């Protein structure tokens, strides 16, 4: 490590941990709210929320993000009061607390961007404080009393909140010791595995950390970065234990108590007013940290993946070289054995790295309840969410990319699917609508995610009228229509959806960005189910290498149903079709099905007459179709990199790969190519004969 103290890394760790706590806080608030609605008083979510606020406050104090400290503390106070008063939170409280979580999230985002952290609005703070029944004036008085007993460096004292002084003092009264430990990060300590994070964990296992204050100190051998952290703690541990944990000299553990250690005893009641109930003291500060879990920045795993990618490329080159010497008549049996063992090892390594990148689907879905709450608030819709992820996992990168699509589908279900409660009651349905998200891992390396609602279903006629198109007669055709850019099935645009962009975007993400599939089932009055099928991972895939109009491309093996030899399986001439768009070049009869064959070179707009010796058959929307091309050159694993720059974001081409020649080879997305005709010109714009042809291409009717 060349830099003594990597602030950026430190901050990104903070952002990750803070996000975790905020997500948790959101979930707990919803639980509290649900309990309150049922008129129950469940102390557990309140305690959990308290812990999460407490942890967040500590984290924020450590990086000096005061606005979060202030808000988290205000929320903590409310919760402490609620816990003490053993009464449920007021009806408006959860709204206010969610606003607080939202404000803290805003602050975390600002830290992430490196922007100035917004100061919390006084109105919000005042409202939160008004939830707590405690009298603030009494606390002001206590503060000066407390300060008199503590010996704290004025620079640090200025940064402490009254409650933190309270905590230190309370510790002393309880016979524990209030101490200050200074920790200065340095490369030497980092090499021994001692960073401020680990020091915090280790000391946290021995003591209650009241506050961590960052300090600038003169640069010295022990503090080469000129930065140190003062940890203010309350503990029963000995100086020696603490010094060992923090990797410092025993003399550097300093007492925070003035020389007269015996304090006036204060009434017991007063004390309990200051202290959180024992049950609410964060578990993290009692338990030893879990050491078998690793938090790693995704970019590090990506680095490993990149290294593996270059290994795969090198292997391709090796195989080529072997083939070359074999052509020259050299005996390559042993080389081939070594090469295939090498291939096996690489496959195993690939599997291991991919495994590291996998995250539970549950983690992806856990942000949905908050979204649902925001969507249904202030409406006459009630929605109950059921999640069934069955322990399925998917690649972190895929999860991040598919999430916005999932959000669109849930929004759609709420805004267009679930009816308002009175309408549901009239239809003899429970007033509360149901949205169910289920995931099933398929054996073919694909994950299926279903979003089902028990709402009114999609009215195909209304959609058709809206789109000014003929009424679709299959689910596939209906989906096609729903995914038209700009289509909205609502008369008035709602704040959440209805701007007519949802389905369009959802499908682009699922189909074009991730190479997945989107399908739809709907029944009027009963409900709608959207099924998303996405690859578990997109980084490395098995591909066919093909040649077409003297250019090389690759196709993911997973989409190809069959490869047909057109030199033996003769093409029949296509039915007469008029119109300007791509015409099928022939029809293939195959196991009782008629398969339209399109010339791949023509569809891609490649110059020159393409020879058509092979055809790859795919199935889209239940209907088979084929593309003819010159040659299938082989099958191999390829590291696929999506083409993200707008200059080369072209429908039908999803990514590029290196087959070992050091130059990119394009990955074709046959599903999109098959659909392209429909979307590019629009069915209505095409002459009638061609239009009917296109529809046949797209749907299963």
């Amino acid at each position, binding site marked *: 490590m060349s830099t003594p103290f990597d602030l950026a890394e430190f901050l990104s760790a903070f952002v990750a941990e803070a996000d975790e706590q905020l997500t948790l806080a959101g979930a707990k608030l919803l639980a509290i709210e649900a309990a309150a609605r049922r008129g129950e008083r469940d102390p557990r979510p309140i305690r959990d929320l308290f812990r999460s606020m407490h942890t967040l406050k500590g984290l924020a104090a450590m990086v000096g993000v005061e606005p979060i400290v202030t808000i988290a503390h205000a929320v903590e106070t409310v919760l402490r009061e609620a816990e003490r008063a053993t009464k449920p939170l007021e009806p408006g409280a959860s709204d206010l607390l969610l606003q607080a979580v939202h404000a803290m999230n805003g602050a975390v985002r600002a830290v992430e961007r490196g922007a100035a952290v917004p100061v919390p609005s006084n109105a919000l703070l005042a409202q939160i404080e008004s939830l707590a029944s405690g009298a603030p004036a009494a606390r002001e008085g206590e503060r000066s009393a407390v300060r008199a007993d503590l010996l704290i460096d004025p620079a640090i004292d200025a940064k402490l909140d009254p409650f933190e002084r309270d905590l230190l003092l309370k510790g002393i009264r309880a016979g524990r010791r209030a101490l200050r430990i200074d920790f200065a990060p340095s490369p030497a300590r980092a090499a021994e595995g001692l960073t401020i994070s680990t020091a915090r964990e280790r000391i946290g296992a021995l003591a209650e950390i009241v506050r961590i204050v960052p300090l600038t100190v003169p640069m010295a051998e022990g503090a080469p970065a000129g930065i140190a952290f003062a940890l203010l703690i309350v503990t029963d541990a000995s100086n020696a234990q603490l010094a060992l944990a923090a990797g410092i000299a025993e003399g550097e553990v300093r007492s925070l108590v003035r020389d007269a250690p015996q304090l006036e005893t204060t009434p017991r009641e007063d004390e309990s007013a200051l202290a959180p109930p024992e049950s609410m003291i964060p578990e993290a500060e009692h338990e030893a940290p879990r050491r078998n879990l690793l938090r790693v920045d995704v970019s590090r795993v990506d680095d490993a993946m*990149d290294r593996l990618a*270059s290994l795969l490329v090198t292997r391709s080159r090796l195989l080529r070289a072997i083939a070359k010497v074999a052509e020259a008549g050299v005996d390559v049996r042993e080389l081939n054995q070594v090469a295939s063992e090498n291939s096996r090892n690489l496959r195993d390594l690939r599997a291991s790295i991919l495994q590291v990148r996998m995250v539970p689907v549950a983690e992806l879905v856990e942000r949905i309840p908050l979204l649902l709450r925001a969507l249904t608030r202030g409406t006459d819709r009630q929605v109950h969410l059921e999640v069934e992820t069955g322990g399925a996992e998917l690649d972190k990168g895929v999860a991040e990319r598919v999430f916005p699509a999932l959000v669109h589908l849930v929004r759609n279900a709420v805004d267009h699917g679930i009816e308002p409660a009175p309408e549901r009651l009239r239809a003899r349905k429970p007033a509360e609508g149901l949205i169910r998200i289920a995931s099933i891992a398929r054996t073919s390396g694909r994950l299926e995610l279903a979003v089902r609602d028990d709402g009114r279903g999609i009215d195909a006629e209304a959609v058709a009228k809206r789109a000014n198109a003929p009424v679709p007669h299959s689910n596939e055709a209906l989906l096609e229509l729903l995914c038209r850019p700009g289509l909205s099935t609502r008369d008035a645009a709602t704040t959440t959806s209805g701007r007519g962009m949802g389905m369009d975007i959802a499908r682009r993400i699922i189909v074009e960005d991730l190479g997945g599939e989107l399908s739809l089932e709907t029944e009027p009055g009963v409900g709608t189910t959207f099924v998303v099928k996405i690859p578990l991972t997109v980084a490395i895939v098995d591909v066919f290498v093909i040649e077409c109009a003297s250019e090389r491309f690759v196709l993911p093996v997973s989409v190809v149903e069959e490869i047909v030899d057109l030199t033996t399986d003769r093409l029949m001439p296509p039915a007469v079709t008029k119109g300007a768009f791509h015409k099928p070049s022939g029809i293939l009869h195959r196991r009782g099905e008629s398969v339209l064959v399109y010339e791949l070179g023509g569809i891609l*707009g490649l110059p020159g007459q393409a020879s058509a010796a092979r055809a790859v058959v795919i199935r889209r929307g239940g209907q088979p179709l084929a593309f003819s091309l010159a040659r299938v050159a082989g099958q191999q694993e390829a590291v696929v990199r999506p083409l993200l720059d707008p*200059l080369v974001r*072209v429908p039908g081409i999803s990514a590029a790969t*290196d087959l070992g020649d050091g*130059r*990119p080879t*394009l990955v074709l997305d046959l599903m999109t190519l098959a659909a392209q005709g429909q979307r590019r010109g629009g069915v209505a714009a095409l002459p009638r004969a061609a239009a009917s042809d296109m529809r046949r291409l797209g749907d299963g009717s």
Partner: protein
Amino acid sequence: MSTLHVIFRVDGSEYALAASDVLQMESYTGATRVPGAQDFVAGVIQVRGRVVPVVDLRVRFGLAPATATLDTRVVVVQARDRTVGLLVDSAREVIKLLPEQIKPPPQMVGEAEGGFVRAVAHLGNRLLMLLDFAKVIGEEALDVN
């Protein structure tokens, strides 16, 4: 404060880009064509394991593409979250420019390069045109219309 600029030639004229935006320069051995991309996109190349689109500046400026020579270079530029290669006739020089040397473009220059020049700099009797990278890669397409 002078800033370093990379100088390159396209059709006999000299252009400049801030060196801080230039990732690297590569000799050009052809790019993989991307069917369906705009005509000024020569294709994609691989740079340090990344796939990068290449904009043929001659075509971007409305000229006919040239055959690649030993001098042909791809100037790989990284700015505004995007990495794009610019195909140029040659690129040999890095020079320092002082802020007072940089002037708004005369009307004529602006028109000839289709608005891709955001400033000019006089260096003795040489005229260097500072390229508007955002416009070249189409980020301000909406403003143009």
